[in-house]
């Protein structure tokens, strides 16, 4: 028999197996469910961010109106940097990737927006995640990546467990070898049909969601990279199952081996790596960070004015040229809390230490990919959809960038005894993306 003929006859075998057809339909249903979950989350986050952006714009307009005296500002003097910055909305946001429907990754573990003040820091409790049922997060959300990484191998098992096995069960394996090519090629041809069927089905369910989020226009390479990873992942399973079937002794025997392999690769090995990682790097109670945000911050607050001045000049040597003579630091800054740049520096240093510690655990996790391939594929998909640890680390860096700007604007403009005009206020707004 020719290769193409075997593929054609496999199609007939498939459509005559209601159990397999139902399984494929269920799998497609689960895929659509997963994609829709991701798409809903993508829309929910965008909607929430739009509401926040609207509120920020209102605050900004209120600030602008204060300059035109259209609004009553009370004790707010917008010519002072402190008040002008108070009316400068500065919400750091992490926009969801248009590829989010393909993997929501660790999205539910983190917050995705934060209203930044000069006293904020990147590990603030304000950054806690969106409200959600922890049990549902612990059980795992049925998103598309879950369907692909965990359920697709199960579907492949259902599609393949009796390929070659049925012939062995019924004892006409030899007949196959006489009538067609070698049993390995015969098996390969039959497998090819399922590879094509599955990859086509996945592409067809993925495409509408890529169109809905405009990924095909804006992030075509990202979309196809995701598809490529899925393809490689599926092929790995097909190859593993090919060898099981080639050496198998019948349908039940093959099913047993396939399910055991699935259990080992998808449940036991990731679980074992997770356990070892937790043993080696227990959950961090962030005491260094807590100490810095409390005791060490208090130490700065209690510093004498002269020490604060010296430390500020050390931290920002550019202020040296402009140090007003014969003024106390309080006079020169004309505001309360001249210590926020020092606290910000302290928190930045501490955050860096915490990040380094967390990175050690990540390096360990990466080093285990060889025994935990699911972890590799999961994190690759998460990275492509900007929903992995590093995407949120990047978000923390953006938050820090906002804090730095806010602190620096106040420091430099106060130090220079600058009167904040409407134009300068617009510059503030622009710096925080509100205009």
């Amino acid at each position, binding site marked *: 028999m020719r290769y193409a003929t075997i593929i054609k006859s496999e199609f007939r075998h498939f459509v005559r197996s209601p159990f397999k057809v139902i399984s494929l339909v269920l799998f497609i249903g689960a895929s659509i469910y997963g994609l829709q979950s991701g798409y809903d989350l993508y829309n929910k986050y965008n909607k929430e961010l739009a509401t926040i952006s609207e509120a920020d714009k209102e605050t900004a307009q209120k600030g602008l109106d204060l300059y035109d005296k259209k609004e009553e500002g009370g004790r707010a003097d917008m010519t002072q940097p402190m008040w002008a910055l108070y009316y400068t909305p500065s919400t750091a946001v992490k926009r969801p990737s248009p590829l989010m429907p393909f993997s929501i990754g660790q999205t539910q573990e983190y917050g995705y927006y934060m209203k930044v003040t000069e006293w904020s820091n990147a590990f603030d409790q304000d950054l806690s995640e969106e409200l959600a049922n922890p049990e549902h997060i612990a059980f795992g959300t049925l998103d598309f990546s879950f369907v692909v990484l965990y359920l697709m191998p199960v579907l492949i098992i259902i599609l393949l467990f009796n390929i070659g096995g049925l012939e062995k069960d019924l004892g006409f394996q030899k007949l196959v070898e006489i009538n067609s090519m070698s049993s390995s090629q015969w098996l390969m041809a039959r497998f090819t049909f399922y590879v094509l069927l599955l990859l086509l089905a996945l592409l067809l369910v993925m495409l509408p969601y890529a169109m809905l989020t405009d990924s095909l226009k804006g992030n075509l390479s990202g979309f196809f990279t995701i598809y490529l990873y899925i393809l490689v992942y599926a092929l790995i399973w097909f190859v593993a199952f090919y060898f099981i079937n080639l050496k198998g002794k019948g349908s039940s025997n093959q099913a047993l081996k396939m399910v055991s392999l699935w259990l080992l690769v*998808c449940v036991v090995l990731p679980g074992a790596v997770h356990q070892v990682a937790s043993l080696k790097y227990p959950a961090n109670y962030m005491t260094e960070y807590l100490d810095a945000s409390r005791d060490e911050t208090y130490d700065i607050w209690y510093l004498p004015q002269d020490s604060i001045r010296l430390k500020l000049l050390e931290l920002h040597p550019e202020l040296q040229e402009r140090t007003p003579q014969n003024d106390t630091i309080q006079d020169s800054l004309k505001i309360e809390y001249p210590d926020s740049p020092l606290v910000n520096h302290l928190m930045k240093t501490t955050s860096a230490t915490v990040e380094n510690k967390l990175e050690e655990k990540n390096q360990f996790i990466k080093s285990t990919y060889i025994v935990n391939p699911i972890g590799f594929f999961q994190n690759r998909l998460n990275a492509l959809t900007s929903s992995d640890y590093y995407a949120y680390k990047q978000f923390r860096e953006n938050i820090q960038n906002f804090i730095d700007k806010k602190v620096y604007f106040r420091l430099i403009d106060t130090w220079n005894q600058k009167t904040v005009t409407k134009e300068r206020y617009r510059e503030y707004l622009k710096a925080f993306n509100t205009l």
Partner: protein
Amino acid sequence: MITIILNEWKALFRNKILLLLSLLFLIGLSIVSWLGIVQNQEQQLQQQAAHEHVRAQWESIDAMNPHGAAHYGSYAFKPITLLSSIDEGVNAVTGNVLRLEGHVQNEMAYSEASQSLSISKFGKLKPALLLQFVIPLLLIFLSFASITSEKELGRLKLLVFQGSSVSRLIFAKSLSVWFYGILLLFITLLFQVLINLNNITPDTWSRTGFIFLGYTLYYLIIATLTTYLSARFKSNTAALTSMLAIWILWTIFLPSIWGNTTSILNPLPTKQQFKTAMKEDRSKGLDGHNPSDKRTEELETKILAQYKVDSLSQLPINFDGLLMQADEDYGNQVWDKHFGRNYSILQKQKQLYQLSGVFNPFASLQNISMGYSGSDMLHHHDFLRQAEDYRRYLIKTLNDKHTYGGSKTGDWNWEAGKDFYLSIKDFDYEMPLTNTISGRYLIDLVFLFLWATVIILVISFTSKKINLL
């Protein structure tokens, strides 16, 4: 029936591959249990160290203004329960640290899951992972061919002619596999008990007992259902694939899909809505007609009248302390309203999830396993409630000191001494006793009993119609 069970066991023990596999599995289970306990102990040490560190900082306060101390605040670190070494439930995804301070009820932060890349969707390799996923599969593998192979060899008819009924045969074969599952379960729990012998309280025994009961019932459901399907179908393949499909549906599809459905049916507010609503209630008043300025005026008038003086400076107490406590009391009502509403929504979601036990016994098992291990959402809420009670005690004590400790209104430099700060008791989380929580999981146990009963009844009443060939 006992003869059939004994024969099945003899056959199992004669199978050297199965014996070897069982031995390896037992060794694996023991290692997993041991690692779970070690990891638990390590985490407990970390939690204890963090707790002691924060308490030592508190006790090192020599002198501080009480309101300053309220801002200085404290932290509650979520403790690790002894049985979470079996099932860690939601612990990895909820935060570990809760800041306790004046003016605000904070949310938990810094979950373990947020501290690294993703590793595993099914959690750590703790005994629960093996007991919930692997052992049921093992039981399926042991029983899917138990009757079909008898049919294929033509022995089923022979056995029936010799006087054994099909239902008795199904029960006997189910029980023999079930006992095997119980043996593995028993050894796992025994291992836990032996290693933790010094720390086990009577309450831990009863919790372990319920965990044992839950798994025992679930294994009975798996063993009887698989054997029944083995009797109903003609081939091993059909029996195996059907049972695998059921297993996948129960353990993978339904928990996620039904969990998501409960969230859709009882939606939580977004964090933004939640915070905005609390902020509004704080400033405008719970009824929208009692803004904070007005409340302050009313309190001032009342206190001046009570002490029969004309101005705050004439008061023998510090009015600022009273005002702050009144604000706390009001804030507490606001927190209770909004956090309470969230907890209530989450409870409804949980109850609805528990109802899925009607069509998914695995959901009931999950609830029992993490519930009695003290690591489910309800225990998490219990921790949050106790931590919040402590926060209220702490802030009230500080505000009372500010009010009645000897300072006058407006005196923000007045400081309380070390003895006062030492006298404030430490936060100590007390895990609820089994008898107080068992009602929460009664429905799960009932569903498991019902499932087992229904399957037994189905076997009893329908096995006569089973084709013997």
